[in-house]
Structure formats: C-alpha cells, structure tokens
C-alpha cells in the first residue's frame, strides 16, 4: 500500500511539473505538449474508437507473429539442444540473428512481400523466434541429467522423457525466453508498422507515424503511452502469474 502511494506521489509530481512547466512557457507546446493536451487527445481517440481499433489491429498481428515464433522457436530449440550439429550451425545463427535489431529485416521484408501483412508478420517472427529458440535450448541443456536417468528407470521412453521431463524441467528458462520474445515481438511490430504502410488495418505504429506527419506531438505521445500501457498490462496479466506459480513450485526466492 505504501509502495503504491509512493508511486502515485512521484508520478503525480512529475505530471504536475510537466503541466506547470508548459503553462510557464518553458518549452514549446508544439514540441512537447502538456499532459492535459495529451489526455485530451487520448479521450478523443478512445471516444471515436480509433485507439481501440488500432490496439486490436496491432494485437492481432502481434499474437499471430508471436504465436508463429513460439511454434517454431520451442521445437527448434529442443532440436538444437539435442544435436551437436544443429547447435554448431542453427544455434550460432540464432545467436547472431538475436543480436540483429529486427527493424533491419524491414527493407528485405518489403522487397520480398511488398506492403502486406505478411511483411509485418515476417518481421515480428524474426524478432521473436531467436530469443525463444536460444532460451529453450539453454533450458534443456540445464536440465539435471539425474531427472532423465530417474525417468528412464521408471520406463519413460525418449518422446515421453522429452515432453514430460525435459520440457517441464526447462520451463523456467522457456518462460524467460517467452517473455523476452514478447518484448522483442512488440518492438519489431512497432518498427514494422512505422515503416510498412498497408491498407489492411491501422495499428498503433501507424497512428504514431501519422501523428508525426501531422506534427501532432500529443498524438505521438498519446500512442507511446498506449503502447507502454498494453506492454505493462500483458506483463502483469500474462507473465506475472505464470512466473509467480513457477517460483512457488520451484521454491526460488522472489521479492
């Protein structure tokens, strides 16, 4: 309760300072709109439904790209951890590609797929896949061998061991990778939406882009806030409960 109060006081003071600074004419309203102006834009965008539409369009793309990234990343991670050959080839490639900011894929995606949903999906998948693949492979390599031996003595075959022992045992790593993958997917998609103009739906990235074109900085800042809010909500609603359950089960400390 005390922590929440501190957060409210600190952010309240920050907003008040921002608003008062604008009132006093310390900086240009065009370059840095006041909180009330941004709140006004947000209210309008929520009222006419354009913000919600953008969130839905972006969310759909995100879930699709993220889902494909997961469906490819986890099995490929399992395979990579099991085969020396894949570890030396695919593993190395994944490590290299993970360090590549996914916005670098945008020019290639545009040439390959044109101004399409596929191009955007491709960028998102490239952003997610490698982090998830690497985390899964890492998790599997960290499974204590004694678990596998114990399972074998109880009659567990290779496939059963993989699905019922190795995969759950590496879950803390896999969830970590999924969280990282989610953050990467989110970034990739914003980059893709800013650069790829499609007529199949206006996402948050497009709203931000048009805010810039219109020199409407309150729109740019409003969309930035919306992007942060969505990211925060997903983290709290999706990942936090899973992580809590894992920590409870595994008995690892959590503050």
């Amino acid at each position, binding site marked *: 309760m005390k922590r929440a109060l501190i957060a409210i006081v600190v952010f309240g003071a920050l907003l008040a300072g921002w608003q008062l600074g604008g009132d006093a004419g310390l900086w240009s309203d065009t370059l840095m709109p006041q909180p009330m102006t941004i709140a006004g834009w947000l209210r309008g965008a929520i009222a006419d439904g354009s913000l919600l539409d953008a969130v839905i369009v972006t969310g759909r793309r995100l879930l699709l790209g993220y889902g494909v990234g997961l469906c490819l990343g986890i099995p490929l991670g399992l395979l990579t951890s099991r085969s020396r050959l894949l570890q030396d080839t695919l593993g190395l490639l994944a490590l290299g590609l993970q360090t590549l900011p996914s916005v670098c894929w945008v020019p290639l995606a545009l040439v390959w797929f044109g101004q399409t949903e596929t191009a955007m999906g491709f960028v998102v998948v490239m952003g997610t896949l490698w982090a998830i693949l690497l985390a899964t492979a890492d998790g599997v390599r960290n499974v*204590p061998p*004694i*678990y596998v*031996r*114990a*399972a*074998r*003595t*109880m*009659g*567990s075959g290779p496939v*059963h061991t993989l699905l*019922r*022992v190795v995969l*759950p*045992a590496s*879950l803390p790593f896999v969830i970590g990778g999924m969280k990282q993958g989610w953050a990467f997917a989110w970034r990739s998609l914003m980059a893709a939406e800013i650069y790829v103009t499609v007529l199949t739906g206006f996402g948050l990235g497009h709203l931000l882009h048009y805010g810039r074109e219109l020199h409407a900085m309150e729109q740019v800042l409003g969309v930035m806030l919306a992007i942060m809010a969505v990211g925060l909500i997903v983290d709290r609603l999706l990942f936090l409960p899973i992580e809590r359950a894992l920590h*409870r*089960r*595994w*008995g690892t400390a959590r503050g």
Partner: protein
Amino acid sequence: MSETTGVPTPDAGPELRLQGVRKFFRSRGSELLVLDDVSLDVAPGEFVCLLGPSGCGKSTLLNVVAGLEQPDGGSVHACGEAVVGPSRDRMVMFQEAALFPWRDALGNVMFGLELKPGLDRKARREVARYYLKLVGLERFEHAAIHELSGGMRQRVSLARALAPNPRVLLMDEPFSALDAMTREQLYADLQGIQTKRRKTILFVTHNVREAACLGDRIVVMSPHPGRICQIVDVPLPRPRDINDAGVAQIARAATALLRAQHSPAGNGAP
C-alpha cells in the same frame, strides 16, 4: 493393492544373476577397468548391501543392474531374463532424491505409474496415496518438493520407487546425505516396509554400520579394479538397530576386511 508384476516365479531361481560382469571407462584412448569379473546371485526377497570405498565401482555395478549402463563383458539376468535396459521391475533410488520440482509429492509418486499400462487416473492416485502413507507422508500429498526436508524427499523418492510395484529395488547410497537421526529413522522404516512389501534389494553404501544393519549379506568390494573381495553373512534377527551389539560386531569384521585391502599383503584376492 493388486499384485500384477510382483508375483514370484515358482521356479524360485535367483532374482538377480550377475556373471563375470566387466566394465571399462574409456577416456581419450586410455581404458580404465572399473568392474572386473563380478559374479553374484541375489535370491528373491534378499537384502544385499554392496560395500566398498569410493572408486570400487559399486555404483557402476548398480547402474549396470538397473540397465542404465551396458556391461563390456559378462551378463546380468533379472528373474531369468537378460537385462538390456531399464525396467519397471527394477526401480532405482538415487543419492539425491531426483524428484521433479514441477510436480508435488503425490505427482512425483504418480510419475512411474503413468507409464504403467492398465491404470486409470483414479487408480494411479489411489496407489500413489497408499505408498505415500506407507512412507508416512500422507499429510504431504500436495507439498512442493522444496518444502520437504532431505529425509522427507528421500521418503517420497522411496514411495516413487515402490509405487510401480517392482520386484527389485536398487538403492544408490540413498541416505548418505542425511543427518544421523533421520537416517536411523529411515533404517527402521525401510526394514518395516521390507517386511510388508518384500522386495529384493541391492543397496550401495560406503557406511559399514549401515550395511551391517540393513543387509542379509554384505558384499565387500575392493577398488582398482572393482571386484568382489568377500561376502559376509549377517545372521541377525530383524528389526535391527544401528546401535545393536550384533550389528557393531559384524561391522567390525567388515571394517577389518576393508582395511586388509589397503595393506600390501591383502590384494583382495579371494
């Protein structure tokens, strides 16, 4: 409890028969002989302790019997059949409990049962509950593994090994990481369970007293290469306590045998 796999065969041959088992460890071209010509028969329901210093290959021998490792020479038969891999008829208990942290105590005991055909979920749960009760943990069914003490973890591990109703229990220094008081309680419990469930047990230890307290026979092994140097019978009544005078006496004799290996004269030759 239904007895599907635990029925002793009428011919009453040895439950385990090891004949001339040899095992090498290979590393970068050099070969190290870890087990040399080990032969041993274990009768159904017998409790045999493998005793020896570290490096005498006793754990390797246990792994070979478990089917986790293949011998380089000789053969292992379990109730007349050659051992080619792990089997639910020979369950293993390791030094570390090796319990799965993503399952609760009951879930761990149920793991082996899930692979046993002909059991539905309800039956599995019932069997698992029975064995958790047998090891005195009926109140900890839903405890997370990290919430259990070392002794309790080994109890869950024992319940997990017993649950599929194996004929043979292979125990690899299962109590060596526990404190003395917990260990003594587990000696009593294990003997009690042994009289109730009658398993053939192969128990690896480096603790002489433990071997004398638990075993019907003590197989004393010598290192480099690992081989059987002598077998000591323990004709003491059960249940035994680690502090019994008879146990102490047998332990003294076994200790003398172990010491003799290190003296220049005694090369462990039978």
